[in-house]
């Protein structure tokens, strides 16, 4: 059982245990769909939905799941919610569903979600698990927004589709192509590590 307060349970996902910058989890979607802010945001929301509901279900029925088959059970629960998210996007936001393509089903194998079930929801109460899921999702959405904002502004001169750079700006095409994703995330990780070291040495 965790000894943190509910507030701390939420806050830790934002920075101390940020899934992307600190734990290096869920890097595939982080890199793949952050070529535009709208895609990154939609992906973040879909992941949030799946994570919160999976945590809710797993923590509610944790006593009923035999430990030998727990991973398989978690995967089935997660896959069901991913199917819901996938169908929902396809029905109500067809353009987003189209540009995210097969990356929506890929939420199933996003290690953030399975990781939280195994590390947290299977051991904690429903309330705490959902708070933890909310915090982790917020951290993930934050990371997606930072990365996709940098890539879209530099790569296309736009933010959420609106022009933000003047006509003098020549878009850095490379930023919206795959190499830009790797390099931007690499630099962001270094910055995150540097901030962490600074705050540690100050203490």
């Amino acid at each position, binding site marked *: 059982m965790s000894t943190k307060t509910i507030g701390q349970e939420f806050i830790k996902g934002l920075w101390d245990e940020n899934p992307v910058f600190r734990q*290096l989890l869920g*890097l*595939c979607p982080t*890199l*793949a769909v952050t070529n535009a802010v709208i895609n990154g945001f939609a992906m973040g929301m879909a992941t949030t939905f799946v994570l919160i509901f999976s945590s809710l279900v797993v923590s509610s029925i944790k006593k009923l799941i035999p430990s030998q088959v727990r*991973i*398989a059970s978690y*995967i*089935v629960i997660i*896959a*069901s919610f*991913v*199917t819901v998210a*996938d*169908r929902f996007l396809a029905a109500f936001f067809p353009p987003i569903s189209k540009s995210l393509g*097969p990356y929506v*089903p*890929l939420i*199933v*194998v*996003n*290690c953030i979600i*399975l990781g939280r079930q195994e590390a947290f929801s299977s051991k904690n109460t429903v309330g705490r698990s959902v708070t933890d899921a909310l915090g982790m999702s917020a951290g993930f959405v934050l990371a997606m927004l930072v990365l996709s904002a940098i890539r879209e502004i530099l790569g296309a001169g736009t933010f959420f589709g609106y022009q933000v750079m003047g006509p003098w700006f020549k878009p850095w095409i*490379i930023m919206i*192509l*795959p*190499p*830009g*994703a*790797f*390099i931007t*995330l*690499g*630099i962001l*990780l*270094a*910055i995150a*590590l*540097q901030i962490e*070291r600074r705050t540690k040495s100050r203490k």
Partner: protein
Amino acid sequence: MELLAIFVAAILINNFVLRYFLGICPFLGVSKKIDSAISMGLAVTFVMSITAVVSWVINHWILIPFKLDYLQIVSFILVIASLVQLVEMFIRKISPPLYQALGIYLPLITTNCSIFFLALMASLREYNFVESIIFGVGSGLGFTLAIILMAAIREQLDHAEVPEALKGAGIALIVAGIMALAFLGFSGMIK
């Protein structure tokens, strides 16, 4: 010709790691030594080839005839999880040395998103049976190529002076970015 195009495209142009960002976890985690990178690459290629066959059979003999294609996500992930388990038991019986060599990498493959993506992509692109197999083998070899190149670069990086904050994942991602840049050169090779 068609088959050759699929094969070459899967290895070089649409490389799973450098173009679709799949399997980044093992790509970063198991690329510190060339030996383990080769084992991981071969294990992935092996599972990918089998997954291509099994997921095609499930998709075309069960899901499509019974109009159950909304169950694709659930059924593919279950198939992959049980397949990896079976392959693990099979290799342990047939060839203990190979089992030793692959070690912990085999179970890790279940959560490797590239395998799942392969099954989805083959069904999305409506490949026939032979095309699916070629696609599976090609994608696996593409992953192997990328992870071996990465391991070779990282072995050299050990001797380089990298800024403290960039050490580990940071520099690995930047190297991957430069590799992706190089692989972009292959696009346009096949129309």
